[in-house]
């Protein structure tokens, strides 16, 4: 027999992947909206921008 408290603890653990999937679904929806609206860049263009940004404002610990 598995008691209610243990069951609910197990459920909490089980729900975590579901919550992660929900967040993931949200991220995909955001990405699709960006794509539809043309808010996209080639990957190498993003790489250049990141390098330029790093050169201009290096992060400090």
């Amino acid at each position, binding site marked *: 027999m598995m008691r209610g408290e243990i069951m609910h603890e197990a459920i909490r653990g*089980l729900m975590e992947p579901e919550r992660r999937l929900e967040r993931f679904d949200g991220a995909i929806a955001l990405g699709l909206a960006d794509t539809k609206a043309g808010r996209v860049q080639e990957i190498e263009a993003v790489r250049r921008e990141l390098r330029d940004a790093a050169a201009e404002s290096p992060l400090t610990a």
Partner: protein
Amino acid sequence: MRLVITAAAKADLLAIRRTIGADNPSRALSFVEELLDRCLVLADTPKAYPLVTRFVLEALAKHERTAFLSGNDRVDLYFREMVSQDVKRKYATCYVLIERNTDKGAGIYTLSAHSIPLNDLAPELAKKLPRYPSVPVVLIGWMGRDLAFRGAGVGSLLLYDAISRVAKALVGAYAICADAIADAIDQLAAAFYRDHQFQPLASRP
């Protein structure tokens, strides 16, 4: 395949760079560049990172049952010849774990309404419960895994799905219980349930 970075993804990359940079500035850019490199791989092998799980659980319908072989004759016989009658009469609900790619049944389990005598519970547990003579529970009547899927974690998947369904059910059930009779095969089943934090009943130690 053409691969582009969306505005949202770029914002995430910038945020990742900032977060890592707070601890390790020299690593921040190289880490983000590694992420971009991984993204590039997707253009050549878009199926390299599947989003779907290997298995899906479905209520028993017109699933192929004759090929199911768990290694336990009683489970196999029940699943092949008897379960649909129990489902039809609403004595049990049956769920089947299907491998998506092959459509093959990897495991089954049934759930039924059940009750256990209050006296069967450990005294420290029973004293916290209402003084009704029996406790409402859900019984995992049958559970089996096809031998072809040994070691794939099918038993745990079935059990967690059962727990999840019982916990979300609209009908009250204090606990979920399973039957494991004292023969050699069911000793394995008993060990499986113990591993998953099930506790023996007083009348069935």
